[in-house]
């Protein structure tokens, strides 16, 4: 039994529609109720940084809008009609049919119907994403695995090519900016990143290159692990799992070193790249240090993260190890599968020598608020979602939205990943505090 949530921060598996919309020229086709596409677009796309619908999301999302007739008599005929016409009307390279609760509960054989189209040469796959199967991150994995299983063929390995499985599109409000940062970082090591989602990621052709990768990089606490395992099984591709958001000087360098070692790229190239990036990072750090030091007396010194496990640990490490803040209590909101929980807890326990943080696995506002009322002795920095503004205010803290849902920020290409991502988070955080105190 999943838990009841006051103010949910993750939606459902059908949220995988957003991962489809994030693939260039890919078209989501929902076999789902009339409101599903719009609600998920609302929660993951528009009212989460106002990311919008883009090319094939929002009002463009194809949907069977299953009604009473389909519930009573089955919706397979309706699905066939909608797919037939979608292939004529929608201008796309890849079609992903996603089933919602209704069609799965009434037992439509969507998989079979979609396979008939595929056998006729249509680039179309089926993803079983009924909402009750799990959250948006699970839906993201189901979509990726569906494309991998149903469309990809083995390829000769291209040295240096690396598939990136990181920020979940749209659920992570900063996904597009983050993925651009990953591209820049990996390119700096001399690798050829295959980013797969977002602008200039190559669409279907890039996905077809997946089996040619030298390795898969799962840059995420757990979302994407099932994809890498699947690719390992199907194509024998090895994979590197780096579970912490690389943000700021220390964490990004640690990440680059590990990738360089794993991928066995040129050490000299890597060292030169890292040194250049660090010089830039510390140029700004040094100048802002006047501010950090001279305002520290009246600035909040403790922080709380209410975010997914990927962000939570990365942000906590940067704020603690580079910016001298202290972790108060951290909340993990992405409901990680059991097998990943102990390593996540350990990650928080070892933020810095002698500094650890208690962690609660919960996306429920009631639980978050209760804990914060107990632990917040001095006003902290609260890094969470729009749902956390009230409790931040109640305990006198300063709030910055870094997680979904986010209706107090407009997010375009902002990245919280890498050296510049670290600077950006610090800029946003202290700008918010400076606005708050004036």
């Amino acid at each position, binding site marked *: 039994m999943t838990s009841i949530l*006051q103010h949910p921060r993750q939606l459902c598996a059908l949220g995988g529609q957003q991962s489809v919309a994030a693939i260039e020229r890919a078209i989501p086709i929902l076999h789902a109720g009339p*409101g599903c596409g*719009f609600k998920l677009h609302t929660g993951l796309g528009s009212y989460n940084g106002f990311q919008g619908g883009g090319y094939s999301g929002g009002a463009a999302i194809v949907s069977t809008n299953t009604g009473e007739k389909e519930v009573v008599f089955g919706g397979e005929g309706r699905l066939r009609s909608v797919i037939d016409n979608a292939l004529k009307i*929608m201008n796309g390279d890849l079609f992903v049919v996603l089933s919602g609760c209704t069609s799965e509960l009434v037992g439509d054989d969507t998989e079979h119907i979609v396979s008939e189209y595929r056998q006729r040469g249509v680039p179309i796959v089926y993803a079983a994403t009924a909402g009750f199967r799990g*959250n948006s991150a699970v839906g993201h994995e189901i979509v990726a695995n569906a494309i991998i299983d149903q469309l990809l063929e083995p390829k000769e390995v291209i040295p240096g090519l690396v598939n990136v499985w990181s920020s979940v599109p749209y659920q992570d409000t900063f996904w597009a900016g983050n993925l651009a940062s990953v591209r820049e970082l990996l390119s700096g090591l001399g690798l050829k990143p295959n980013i797969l989602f977002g602008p200039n990621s190559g669409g279907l052709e890039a996905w077809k290159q997946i089996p040619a990768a030298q390795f898969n990089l799962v840059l995420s606490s757990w979302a994407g692990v099932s994809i890498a395992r699947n690719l390992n099984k199907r194509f024998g591709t090895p994979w590197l799992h780096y579970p912490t958001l690389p943000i700021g000087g220390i964490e990004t360098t640690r990440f680059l070193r590990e990738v360089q070692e794993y991928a066995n790229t040129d050490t000299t190239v890597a060292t030169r790249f890292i040194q250049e990036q660090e010089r830039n990072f510390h140029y700004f750090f040094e100048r802002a240090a006047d501010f950090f030091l001279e305002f520290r007396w009246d600035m909040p010194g403790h922080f709380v993260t209410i975010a997914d496990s990927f962000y939570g640990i990365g942000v906590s490490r940067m704020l603690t190890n580079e910016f001298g803040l202290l972790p108060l209590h951290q909340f993990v909101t992405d409901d990680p599968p059991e097998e990943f929980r102990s390593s996540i807890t350990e990650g928080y326990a070892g933020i810095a020598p002698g500094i650890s943080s208690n962690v609660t696995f919960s996306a429920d506002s009631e639980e978050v608020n209760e804990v914060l009322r107990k632990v917040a002795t001095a006003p902290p920095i609260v890094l969470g979602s729009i749902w956390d503004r009230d409790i931040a205010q109640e305990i006198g803290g300063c709030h910055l939205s870094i997680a979904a849902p986010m209706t107090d920020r407009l997010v375009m290409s902002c990245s919280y990943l890498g050296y510049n991502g670290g600077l950006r988070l610090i800029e946003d955080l202290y700008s918010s505090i400076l606005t708050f105190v004036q």
Partner: protein
Amino acid sequence: MATETLSEYKTVARREPGVAIRERRLGSITGFVGTPDELVQISRSGRLQERERSFTQAGTCSSFCATLQLSLIQDAVVINHAPAGCAGDFPMFNLYNRYGQGKRSLSRASARLITTNLSEHDTIFGATEKVLEAIHKAYRTYHPRAIFVTASCTSGIIGEDLESVIERAEEELGIPIASVNCEGFRSQVWATGWDAAYNAILQKIVRPAKTKRPEAINIITFIGEDHFSELLRPLGLIPNLIVPFTTVGQLEKLSEAGATTQMCSTLGTYFAAGLEKEYGVPEIKSPPPYGLASTDRWLRELASVTGKTEIVEQFISAERNAVKLELEKLQERFAGVKAFVAAGPSHGHSSMEVLQDLGIELVGSCMFHHDAKLDHGDSVGDTLRAATTRSGKMPYSVCNKQAFELVNLLRRIKPDLVIIRHPSLAVSVAKLGIPACFIDDEHLALGYRGLVRYGNKISDWLRNPAIERTLLRNSPLPYTDWWLNQQPFSMLGGEA
């Protein structure tokens, strides 16, 4: 409820939970192509039939509409009995809540929303215990005055018996708890969700009047600014905007009001008719006060119901005079401008009236559904007829937010501007390079002064459609050339 016992309120709860869907109750449809004259005539003859599309894009559902109204009641809680994805609209209602609280000088707080987060296990073994647990959670977190439990496709299909759980919880907690039958699959007319929400309020919240407040006028609406005061206060009447931003205590007393009216006849048709039928609060049946003619007519009916006939004519002529010059300037400014309206009825009809009064030519329109009649059944309330006395022969369609159809149609009609309602659709219009005027405050155009407010807003937007130009140049629509060369309604089939 504070001073009354549960049993006392139970004796007045006369309604059954649940409401019949609009397709059955009002003969509502989502597919039509023709003219306003034709649609009015077929609707009145009782021969209106639904036409289904063989291709569709994501619509909206009843759950969205029901929750929008209920989640903005300031001291209630909404529990969505559904998988977590159905809570995708929570952040929108939360923004409406915080934004609206700010505009009304209320202290800002998050909307009170909970999901039972149904899992696969729950779909097999049932989850009514989770509803009970969620009710307890709602109670201990917020101490609400009422709780609404909204159903979902999943809870409906697996056959959750919400009523027995609710009855247990009511006994225990002593507050009204209502189920809302807004399962998405039940109706293709998402406005059915309003009815489900209002039914729950009529069933569990509204009480018989102990005193009467004839000067109070219930106005069923969304979240707009209170421009109704401009029309009501000079007549000695007080607007009681419902349901958003009210309290349960205010809703209990809706029966005390002198009349009920609405900003959109399709929004509150069920509610207004229920208040009249069960509590004798007369419904103002004339189309809502948008545009000169409808505002005159609405004011006269309101005055007649509330005994203000003697002062209303003077008010009408004074208001008309007050805006006369500015209106003439706007009409001059808009001479030759052609507009298309894509919106829900009947607010879309109101927009059509406003545009025509501003001197803008209507060249077509598509409404998200059509009700063959309203709950009160009186043709005096026919908003389509009222809006198109001057434009009964223009192209008119009913289309439940199908962007592919709208885009195809607009490429042919080529209007100078499109008035658009409902989030997510404006960008499809703007990608054609056509100014897309999305006005979320449904009261902006209200009454006489609203014509000027609305006209000025549109005038500004028409002066600089840079966003639309940028999109046209750089961001293609996701439709094939094949489709754009088909007839716009070629996916609209025969009668269902």
